[in-house]
């Protein structure tokens, strides 16, 4: 395996073009190196992006947040202002793995690994996040919602890399939240995940985005679930509508973590709980 550590994104793209056989990029490594270790994927070329300027920065602009691809979950969780603006995105990232994994794991790595159960992705989708990319034919901005295309797959072209994650500024009177179901209290892969972002006017929900994870081949927004909330004050009827819409959107599998019936059932339960947390945060937000 050849290990390369370019200084710029352009150099990284050039190296990727020349690479033969299996190519992987390295940010935190908490997925790539597990796959290497267990002989699932042994790259012929591994391009470490952590040497590139700016990859460790969290920058706040008027449009929101630009998060470098090598910023670790621990650094995100320690960022007070980001936590204020997007508590849901931060708690979603923080739930991934142990304290030790949080010292390395990154938003981009979680997204590019393409796991249907990725924790940060539903929260990023609900927040309307996007990814700036660079590839052989230039740069583009992709909505996170468009990136997952199947278990372990994304829409990124071969040799195309994400250069930063952009999270828009949170609107006024808004709040997001993320929760997942796991059998233990830590260290498990999500059996069900749900991220919700709400905007309120007084008690009435005026804007909503609902994303669910681990219950379908890809993580996805559920427009019907958002519609069930908009216009309501999160009463029982709205919550029941939310749960039904979420369950209808589920297309899960039976595996060593959960059954189809269980995932569908708990997806609705989780959505109700996450909505209540997001609603409370939205009404408290300035």
């Amino acid at each position, binding site marked *: *395996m050849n290990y390369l550590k370019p200084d710029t994104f352009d150099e990284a793209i050039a190296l990727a073009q020349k690479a033969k056989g299996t190519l992987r990029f390295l940010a935190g490594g908490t997925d790539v*190196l597990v796959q290497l270790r267990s002989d699932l994927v042994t790259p012929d070329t591994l391009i470490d992006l952590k040497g590139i300027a700016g990859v460790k920065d969290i920058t706040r602009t008027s449009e929101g947040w630009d998060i470098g691809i090598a910023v670790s979950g621990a650094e995100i969780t320690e960022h007070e202002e980001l936590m204020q603006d997007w508590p849901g995105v931060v708690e979603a990232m923080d739930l991934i793995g*142990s304290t030790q*994994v949080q010292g390395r794991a990154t938003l981009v790595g979680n997204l590019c690994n393409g796991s249907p159960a990725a924790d940060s992705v539903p929260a990023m989708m609900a927040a309307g996040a996007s990814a700036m990319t660079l590839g052989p034919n230039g740069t583009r901005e992709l909505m996170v919602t468009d990136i997952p295309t199947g278990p372990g797959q994304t829409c990124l072209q071969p040799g195309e890399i994400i250069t930063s994650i952009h999270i828009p500024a949170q609107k006024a009177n808004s709040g997001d939240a993320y929760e997942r179901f796991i059998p233990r209290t830590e260290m498990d892969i999500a059996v069900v995940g749900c991220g919700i972002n709400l905007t309120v006017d007084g008690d009435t929900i005026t804007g909503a985005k609902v994303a669910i994870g681990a219950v379908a081949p890809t993580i996805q927004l559920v427009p019907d679930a958002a519609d069930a909330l908009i216009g309501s004050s999160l009463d029982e009827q709205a919550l029941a509508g939310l749960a039904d819409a979420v369950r209808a959107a589920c297309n899960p599998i039976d595996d060593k973590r959960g059954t189809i019936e269980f995932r569908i059932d708990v997806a609705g339960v989780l959505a109700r709980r996450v909505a209540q947390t997001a609603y409370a945060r939205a009404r408290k937000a300035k």
Partner: protein
Amino acid sequence: MSKQVITTTVNGDSVDFVCDPRESLLDVLRDRLGLTGSKEGCGTGDCGACSIMLDGRLVCSCLVLGVEAEGKTIETIEGVATGTQLHVLQDKIIEHAGLQCGICTPGIIVAAKALLEKNPDPTETELRYWLAGNLCRCTGYDKIIRAVMDAAAELRKVA
């Protein structure tokens, strides 16, 4: 397989080593630098027995490549005690019998030390969640938690 020469700092000493890019930092620490205090319990970042500090951040050394250590600052269990003086965490783990077989103990001490340097007065729950990535199969965690809480209290007195 193109081996590389890496220069890094381990427990305050500058060290050089040659390693294959596929070798983890844990493999390097143990097999090339003779620091066998960090243990491999799983190789997949699930057990924490290989915990070290990398540039001041608590990580699993099995999920870091040896080649990534270039120019970094690494602290392992072997660097926790200063000279003949054990760190108070090491004392308290022995005093409270917060170990039985001891294979998880190095990882737990490195992790607990990282917490106490950040949060000198953690609640039991905060400590249990911080150590959730350090598996122990012998003790049921009870005496480990008591030992770390006692060490924290001791450190607060001194601070």
